[in-house]
């Protein structure tokens, strides 16, 4: 095709006019829009209780993977359980942020000990931890157990050690906590049973 100078200018001007008109709103676009896809569509839903305070709100934990053997589950979202009578779906700011608590790098995942005089935490095994706790408990109880009071009445109490239990325990766990502590004569038991 032969194009002379004048025709070339005409082509350029025509093209420019056309594209200008198009960009000024004469070119219809597809009028499509979409909300973000619902992120829980096929997530596994697991019920649990919030680990923080003694209100014990019900939570729903949503995790990746459907339980297939080659997939590793991982919790990616947590919200309140609407069917739970305590909170009926609501959660406080601490509960609402639980997913970051689960994945926090500062989260305690195994027993650690800071020896007297040291400023470093050392990882120990569960067996070692239980042995150490049992040793401390026995030594302290042997030294401070009170069998009888001043009047000679049997009291069987042990006041120098306390027990921190969980606020969100079931009845069964609560029964075990009580059985264990009272059989040792321990009186100071804190279940954080308050708001």
């Amino acid at each position: 095709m032969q194009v002379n100078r004048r025709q070339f200018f005409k082509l350029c001007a025509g093209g420019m006019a056309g594209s200008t008109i198009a960009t000024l709103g004469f070119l219809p676009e597809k009028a499509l829009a979409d909300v973000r896809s619902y992120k829980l569509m096929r997530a596994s839903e697991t019920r649990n209780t919030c680990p923080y305070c003694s209100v014990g709100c019900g939570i729903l934990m949503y995790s990746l993977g459907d339980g297939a053997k080659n997939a590793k589950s991982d919790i990616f979202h947590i919200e309140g359980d609407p069917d739970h009578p305590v909170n009926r779906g609501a959660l406080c700011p601490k509960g609402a942020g639980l997913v970051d608590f689960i994945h926090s790098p500062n989260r305690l995942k195994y027993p650690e000990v800071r020896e007297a005089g040291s400023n470093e935490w050392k990882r120990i095994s569960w067996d070692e931890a239980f042995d150490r706790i049992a040793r401390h408990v026995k030594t302290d109880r042997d030294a401070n157990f009170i069998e009888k009071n001043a009047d000679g009445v049997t009291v069987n109490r042990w006041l120098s050690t306390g027990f921190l239990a969980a606020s969100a325990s079931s009845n069964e766990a609560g029964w075990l906590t009580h059985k264990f502590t009272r059989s040792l004569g321990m009186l100071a038991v804190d279940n954080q049973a308050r708001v």
Partner: protein
Amino acid sequence: MSLQSQDILRRSASPTQPPIAREHKEEVAKLIDVTTCIGCKACQVACSEWNDLRDEIGSNVGVYDNPADLTAESWTVMRYSEVEQNGKLEWLIRKDGCMHCADPGCLKACPSPGAIIQYANGIVDFQSEHCIGCGYCISGCPFNVPRINAKDNKAYKCTLCSDRVSVGQEPACVKTCPTGAIRFGSKEAMKEYAAERVGELKTRGFDQAGLYDPAGVGGTHVMYVLHHADQPELYHGLKKDPEISPVVNLWKGILKPLSTIGLAASVLFGFFHYIGVGPNKAEEDEEEKA
């Protein structure tokens, strides 16, 4: 992956009519009862959790407001105001964020086709992939809500959890609110509930209690119950009569159509001039001289 939702009432910078066949949808609304809010910020946490936002951890600026302002990654913040009313101190706490106006200033001001849309249920949503980062939505917004993200130069704001609402759930902030200060439902149902609350407040001595659903922006899909509805400014400067800036109205409502007509007219004139008068013929000798 876009769906043919067919329920888009309005689309930014688009002269073509969006498909609105499915407009028989219930208008939704979020009602924030400022009088029962305790300022716990569970809504802020639930918002960033659901929307996968993690804003930079800021520093304490000496007041409870934290973060201190809305950002591209904090779509809702609690605003705390200490005011004196009737001779005593009142601590007013307002959850700030997008109001989802029926007549959205951001959408009017936006020059990028399809970057801001309004669904039939009233939700005003940003389609961030179409955003060009010009910031006109911020100037168009009567409530100063959208924020530009420095990382990708795109504007962001509350979506009213359009992804949750589209599957029949309430927004994340509504679900988590421990005192039930944030409610969600049809706009009608929320107005009824608000009227109930206002009645209760009036019996408790708040004579000026009322619903904040400003007519200047056609009403909003996020409404407040205020104890002092006659002075919304008390609540961290909530505007009494919010309106879209006259500049945006003049520019987008009058100047833009005028300029389009002007351009079309000049093109048409050029065409008819070419047909009627014909091309400008240069004289042979003139061309040689040149």
